[in-house]
């Protein structure tokens, strides 16, 4: 089994578990919907606010759900078993990151039509670009979310840690996502934001697996 297969197996396992329970995704979708409605109502449903509200909803939902799969593993004491399998811990990271990314991308895909309806946006012909922007942002959120999930497993008051860490550290993702979504909706040039978001993704997709291995040494 090579690294890709090993990461793929972990991702498939995470997604299959999620598919059977559908708890994390349901909670994230409902929470994101709630945040979108609340912010839309409180700030006014002006279409210029739509991208900011969407990305705040996505960021908050990621904060809520990113730690869940790994915590469930730790609670079920299956994390130790997973770590006993031969091979690099890095593949474990890639698998978990891919599964979390898929879940967040699904959430983003669900949020887009919702925003189209709630904020009266004409986004159908721009859907591929919007999904692309979402994928770039989701990559960064998943990269850090997976790392911090590994961190939260061995901490008292686990739920407290993810909001404290993920949100400030992934601020660039939210800001770049907001500006890129705005640019896509108004058909403007994305400018430097595309580069910034890509740089953020590359930076943490390269360093997070190494740091993940450090955290998983004796988990």
């Amino acid at each position: 089994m090579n690294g890709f297969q090993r990461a793929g197996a972990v991702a498939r396992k995470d997604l299959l578990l999620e598919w059977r329970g559908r708890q994390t995704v349901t909670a994230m979708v409902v929470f994101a919907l709630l945040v979108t409605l609340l912010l839309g109502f409180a700030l006014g449903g002006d279409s210029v606010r739509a991208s900011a509200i969407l990305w705040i909803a996505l960021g908050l939902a990621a904060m809520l759900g990113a730690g869940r799969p790994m915590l469930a593993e730790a609670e079920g004491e299956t994390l130790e078993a997973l770590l006993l399998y031969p091979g690099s811990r890095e593949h474990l990271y890639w698998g978990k990151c891919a599964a979390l990314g898929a879940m967040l991308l699904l959430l983003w895909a669900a949020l887009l039509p919702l925003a189209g309806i709630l904020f009266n946006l004409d986004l159908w012909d721009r859907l591929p670009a919007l999904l692309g922007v979402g994928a770039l942002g989701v990559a960064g959120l998943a990269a850090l979310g997976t790392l911090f999930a590994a961190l939260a497993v061995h901490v008292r008051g686990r739920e407290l840690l993810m909001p404290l860490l993920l949100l400030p550290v992934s601020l660039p993702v939210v800001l770049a996502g907001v500006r890129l979504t705005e640019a896509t909706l108004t058909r403007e040039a994305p400018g430097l934001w595309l580069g910034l978001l890509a740089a953020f993704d590359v930076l943490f997709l390269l360093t997070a697996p190494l740091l993940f291995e450090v955290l998983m040494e004796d988990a």
Partner: protein
Amino acid sequence: MRPVSGLTLLAAGAAILAGTGLVFGLILSPPDAFQGEYVRIMYAHVPSAATAYLAVGTVAVASLLYLWKRRPAYDRVAHSAAEIGVLFTGLALASGMIWGKPVWGTWWTWDARLVTTAMLFLIYIGYLLVRELAEDSERGARMAAVIGIVGALDIPVIHYSVSWFRTLHQPASIVRGDIQIAPPMLMALMINLSAFFILYAFLLVLRVRLARLEDARAAAALGETG
């Protein structure tokens, strides 16, 4: 007794420089053409911010060394620097607000460096919190080192993202030899900067020593009971 004498030297250096800095900052430097006497807040604000960033750098380097060599000494340096960093970040934020009120007419603006510094403050509070919440101290040290490295990598990205989002902060006054500041003011600023840096070194050495004593006491207590 040698570490004590080094410490005294640092304390004396910081005190003398801070005193000189006070004289330069409050008396010998002129008021600013636009900001008047308010410019003197700069002599406390800029060194606080610079010390905060120096502490963040120390945390990152010490964290990296800790993950590489696994010597508790590096972790003690990282932990101590993070505590002092949070302190100076708080001071920089507070003095910045006090300076901003008369000069910009507002306590807070949604400006790049303000928001970056506020985020830095939050990330390093998270860093200290992880240590407190960790199940055991060795694991806490490893987790904290991870956050120390992620935080330091993140700060430039946060800075650029926030500054492109919207910005109004006055451009940095001393940029690569292109000095746009009157010499007496620069003198006052430099003296205060060195005073803060030496104060930082003094606090760091003191805090690391405290951490070492705490670890030794914990080990001794463990030896007695076990």
